[in-house]
C-alpha cells in the first residue's frame, strides 16, 4: 500500500549470511535518504508470508513497487551491488 518503493528482507535467526546482509542492506537503504523504505521479515515468525512470497532460501530480498514484486535477489550482495539494486528500484 505504500506510495514509496519498499525493499523486503526475508531472513532467519539460524541463517549466517542473513546476519551479514541485514546491517549492510540497512546502511545502503539509509543512504537513499528516505526514497525507499525497508521491511524485515523473520520467516519463522511469519512463515505464511514467506510461503506466500515463495521464499525458499534466505536471505531473499524483494523489491516492491505499488504492491508488486518488481525485482529480487537471493544470497549476499556487496554494497555496490545493493546500491545498484536500490537505484534501479527508485528509478524504475
Amino acid at each position: 500500500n505504500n506510495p514509496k518503493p519498499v525493499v523486503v528482507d526475508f531472513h532467519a535467526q539460524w541463517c549466517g549470511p542473513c546476519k551479514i546482509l541485514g546491517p549492510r542492506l540497512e546502511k545502503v537503504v539509509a543512504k537513499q535518504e528516505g526514497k525507499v523504505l525497508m521491511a524485515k521479515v523473520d520467516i519463522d515468525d511469519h512463515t505464511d508470508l514467506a510461503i506466500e512470497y515463495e521464499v525458499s532460501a534466505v536471505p531473499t530480498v524483494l523489491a516492491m513497487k505499488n504492491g508488486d514484486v518488481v525485482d529480487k535477489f537471493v544470497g549476499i550482495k556487496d554494497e555496490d551491488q545493493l546500491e545498484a539494486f536500490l537505484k534501479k528500484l527508485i528509478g524504475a
Partner: protein
Amino acid sequence: QEAAKYEKKVMVLDFVTPTPLGNSWGLGGTCVNVGCIPKKLMHQAALLGQALQDSRKFGWQFTEEVKHNWMTMTEAVQNYIGSLNWGYRVALRDKKVTYENAYGEFVGPHTVKATNKRGVAKLYTAERFLIATGERPRYLGIPGDKEYCISSDDLFSLPYCPGKTLVVGASYVALECAGFLAGLGLDVTVMVRSILLRGFDQDMASKIGQYMEEHGINFIREFVPIKVEQIEEGTPGRLKVIAKSTKGNQIIEGEYNTVLLAIGRDACTRKIGLDKVGVKINEKTGKIPVNDEEQTNVPYIYAVGDILQDKLELTPVAIQAGRLLVRRLYAGAASKCDYVNVPTTVFTPLEYGACGYSEETAVEKFGEENIEVYHSHFWPLEWTVPSRDNNKCYAKIICNIQDNERVIGFHVLGPNAGEVTQGFAAAIKCGLTKEQLDSTIGIHPVCAE
C-alpha cells in the same frame, strides 16, 4: 512428498506437544529436532575435544587451556536444525503438500480433527490415513520428575550448560548423552536399574560401559531414583536425588545440577482417537501392530515408524517403509520394507556399529554348536601415536555354519563405526559368507580392514 508425486491430494498434520518444561520445536520429527541430528553434532563436539588432546602428540602446540562453551555449540546446532525445519516447509510447499501445524486426532470414520496451538479446530476427511506420531520420553512417576528433570526433548536446546549431570537410564539415548556430556568436560554419572543397552548384544554392551567407566563416567548400578528435590533454583540449579537399591533397602543421595531422564520412550497413540475408528493397539505398550504392508486392522489406516509393534525404531526404516507403502498404493509397486539386517550405530564415546543378530539371539535361534564367532581386538593407527587404548576396539562376526558360514551378525566397536558398518550391511544383504569376507582384500591402514 512421495504420495504427492503420484498426484494425490496430501495433507500433513504435525504438532509438538510441549515438554513438561515448556519446550517445543519445528517441522521434521524427533530425529531432526531432538534425536539423531543434534545428538551426532554434540557427539562430534565431544570427539573434537578428544582430538584436540591427541593433536599435541602429533605436534600441534597451543598454550591456551582448551575449554568448551555450551552456548556456542547449542546455538550452532539449533541454527542448523532451524534451517532443516525451514527446508522441510519449502519441500512440502514445492511438492504441493498441505501442511498444518495442528494436533490431529480421529473423530470418526475417515475423519480427523486438527487443533492448532490457539485451540482452533478444523475437520478433514480423507480416503487414507498414515499414522507416524512417534514417541516421547517416559518419566519416572516419582515426586519431582516433571518439575525438575529434563529429557532428550530438552537437552539439545538447553539455554545453559547442564553442569554436573545425573543421567538416569541405560538406553542408547542415556549412554550417548552421558558420553558426549562427559566428553565436553562435565561431571557425569549414569544411574542404571539393571543391564545396559537392553536388546543389543550384551557382550558389546558391557564393553561400551566398561570403556565409558574407564574414561571418567561414573556408574551407579542397580539403583532407581525415588525422589528429586530442588535445593536451589538456577540455570542450572541444584537438585538432590534420592535413590533406592533394586536389590535391598539401601538408600543413597546425590547432588547434581541436572537430572536427565532417558529410561525409555512411549508411543503417541493413546490420545489420537484410535478408539473412534477401531484401530487396535497393544494396550500395554501403546504400539500398533501392522501387517507386512504397514496396514493396521482398519484397512484405510496405515502406520510407520517408532509406533509400530515389533519393528525397529530407526529413522531410515520409517522413511523407507513410508516410501515403499506409497509406491505400493499409488504406483503399482510390490516391494515391501525389509526389516531384516538393518544396520545401526550407537554413538557412545567408543562407537558401536551392528548389523544382524546379536550373539545371544543367534545362539538362541540356531544353537551354539551351529554358529561360529570370529573376533579380534584392533588398535586404530590414529590411536597409536597419542597412546590411546590398544585393547578396546573390537570386532566380531557371527556365522551360520549350516549355511556356508553365512555372516548373520556383524559387530564393531571403534571410531567411525557407522561409516565402517554401512558397506558391510549391503554385503550382508547380498548373503556375505565368511569365505567371501576372507577373500576380500583389506584397505590399509584403516579400522574397517
